[in-house]
């Protein structure tokens, strides 16, 4: 308008923290929803098969989820920056074999784990450099590194195989032992998860990951070191994939050149089911971890209920679509609620 009306906007008092509550509620709700689905599913299964929640049953449930939780945590960081890392399955495979090969030659278990993590960091750095320097979509870049890492793995491993017999007893025990029903591996994953969540919420560089996923151009203009942050996210993702590789070795004791094949798709599903928005800027690692727990639980629930495991994939796919649908609906509801609120306060 080129004329100014005589009506001046009245200066109202700040409208309390209605916004916080609204937004917090939505996010908590999103994670709560997965938790509820998970608990209901477990309760139903327990009702149908009382053996399900035995000590061993709980342990299996947690062990199955642990590796996925770790990789999904790393993947979340990358997805939050509006990127994706499809090479995590290959990274997991090659790091698992590297750790196994080293242990087979009589190496120290702690060094083996460090080795796997370092190799993972190497893969992550490669991805991060390619994505942040080349102006190419991450989907394509990491699809390339998926094949490259897998290819190198195949050439190096050939038809060799690591079996539990090749590994030191202490390492195998570490993979299956724990505090009563809680495996060591799950405790490690939990520690990593909590630390990552804390970092994302309370550190500037953590918030900047959200910022650059939310609006990359604005992030650049705000002086955020975009490339460095993306590199960090990929490196961290690679490191966790490496750690997961070592844990995979400890848990299953069996690694060959196809280990982790196709795993990236499960990881991405877990992240999305957990409410990390694929277009970046929103979501939490707790959500991703719950998503991972939910997806792996389906694997255990179906056999316990006597349903054929051929259904697992279809159900996982259904959960994925459901999650996306719910997110869409919630997002549009929140958007209109926010619009109304600003209209009222305008």
């Amino acid at each position: 308008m080129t004329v100014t009306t005589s009506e001046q906007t009245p200066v109202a008092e700040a409208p309390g923290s209605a916004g916080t509550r609204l937004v917090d509620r939505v996010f908590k709700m999103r994670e709560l929803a997965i938790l509820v689905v998970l608990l209901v599913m477990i309760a139903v299964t327990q009702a149908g098969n009382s053996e399900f929640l035995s000590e061993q049953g709980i342990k299996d449930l947690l062990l199955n989820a642990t590796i996925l939780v770790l990789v999904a945590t790393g993947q979340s960081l990358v997805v939050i920056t509006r990127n994706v890392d499809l090479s995590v399955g290959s990274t997991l495979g090659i790091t698992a074999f590297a750790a196994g090969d080293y242990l087979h030659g009589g190496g120290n278990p702690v060094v083996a784990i460090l080795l796997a993590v370092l190799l993972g960091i190497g893969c992550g750095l490669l991805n991060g450099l390619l994505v942040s320097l080349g102006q190419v979509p991450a989907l394509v870049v990491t699809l390339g590194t998926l094949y490259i890492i897998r290819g190198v793995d195949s050439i190096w491993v050939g038809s060799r195989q690591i079996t539990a017999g090749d590994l030191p007893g202490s390492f195998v025990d570490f993979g299956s032992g724990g505090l009563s029903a809680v495996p060591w591996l799950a405790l490690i994953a939990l520690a990593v998860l909590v630390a990552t969540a804390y970092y994302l919420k309370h550190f500037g560089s953590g918030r900047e990951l959200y910022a650059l996923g939310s609006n990359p151009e604005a992030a650049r203009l705000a002086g955020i070191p975009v490339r460095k942050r993306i590199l960090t996210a990929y490196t961290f993702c690679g490191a966790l994939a490496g750690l997961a590789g070592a844990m995979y070795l400890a848990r299953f004791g069996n690694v060959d050149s196809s280990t982790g094949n196709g795993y990236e798709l499960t990881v991405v599903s877990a992240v999305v089911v957990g409410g990390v928005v694929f277009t970046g800027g929103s979501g939490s690692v707790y959500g991703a971890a719950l998503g991972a727990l939910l997806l792996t639980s389906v694997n255990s629930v179906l056999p316990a209920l006597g349903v054929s495991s051929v259904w697992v994939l279809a159900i996982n796919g259904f959960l994925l679509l459901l999650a996306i649908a719910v997110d869409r609906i919630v997002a549009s509801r929140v958007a209109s609620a926010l619009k109304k609120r600003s209209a009222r306060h305008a």
Partner: protein
Amino acid sequence: MTHPSDTGPAPVLALQDVSKSFGAVRALRDVSLELFPGEVHALAGENGAGKSTLIKTLAGVHRPDAGRVLLDGEPVVFHGPGDARDAGIAVIYQEPTLFPDLSIAENIFMGRQPRRALGRIDHKATRAATTALMKRLGVALDPDRPARGLSIADQQIVEIAKALSFDARVLIMDEPTAALTGSEVARLFGVVRTLRDQGAAVLFISHRLEEIFQICRRVTTLRDGAWIAGELVDGMTEDDLVRRMVGRDLDELYPKQDVPAGEVALAVRRLTREGIFTDISFEVRSGEIVGLAGLVGAGRTEVARAVFGVDRWDAGEVEVRGRKLTNGAPSVAMSAGLALVPEDRRAQGLVMDMSIERNIGLTGLRTTVKAGLVDRGAERSRSLDWAVRLQVKFARIADAVSTLSGGNQQKVVLAKWLATGPRVLIVDEPTRGIDVGTKAEVHRLLGELAADGVAVLMISSDLPEILGMADRVLVMHEGRITAEIPRSEASEETVMAAATGRAAA
């Protein structure tokens, strides 16, 4: 210096004979500019004159090829936006650059959050500081709400709060008023005056000349990347300024032709879309230009979208030249001879990465397709024809639309729709963000179309444009048409009264 500067405080920030090229395009040539504390300085020029490049140079986004940037009289080199920010330079871009997923407080303090021990963010202090800033600006925005869904005016307030939060001494505002309503502009100017009085240097860009005279003390004009003048606003007239910008006397800005109205070309009867607009009835005759005025958010764009079939309507009917349109079917509307030039050309009007040729060609695919394949030759000649008729400035017709300036992009959108040979044309904010020169061309074009018997419905928030071009003015307020005012009775007062719902005309 190449232009006079009176004695007084020394400039905070200055450009000295700065040049910048992008490939073969010389965006800036030997441009100088001085920003003084406690003063609002206008940057004038047509689209493509180099204003954006100049701003980005001050903001540290671009580095000059030649010349110097002076901060407090000392030459500086900004290696990135962060450097400029640290020097106390804040830029509020035309398209606000917020993080939609993050809270207002986080948006303001991103990268500079108050810290606790171990480098952790002090969320409480961040929130408190935001509340204090909002109080200082006299606005009520909740620090914790996400930026998503904020109006453009509120987004700008957040940007200004961001500038305040690091005690910016220089505030650069790139067309901040382009999408604001009258009262929002008044609020913004209030804030700008306060900052100015507190000693900030403000660089202000607007295509609305009256705003420059309203708030600025000094004006620097650019034309085709070259420095034309730097002078005090006092004693200048709008005509003076336009002459410097355009380089010639401008033909009349509103070349309205008197055309006898013909038959009813577009008839809208009792159109309702629940919660959006209610009981909308009007007619547009061929040869007529009907203005649709109202405040932003009154439902004008939504009516246009429903008429064209992009959105569905819940009740009512639309007729184009006696033919009833199908609800929610743009293809039917198009074949009936209706065309809609949308408001947001970036998002709705153009495929930015595609060539000019193909963008214009999009609407004509029906006629240029032979045996299922696009006849590229026909498409090219048709597109070139229209691009030339509208005087689009381009290097090659195969260049991507994104390489054009804003005004030329708008012309491409117009060309795209005019190429369909519409009998009824709906234009939504046809000249928003366009310089005066192009604006006059667009107006002349609309006038010629009407003279050719096209019925034009023109949505605009630019009141002089409505008053200058429309035969009749329809005014919407909160989803309803509150007034229909013939040209003879239309004035700023009558239209604004109806737009704000203060009186039924």
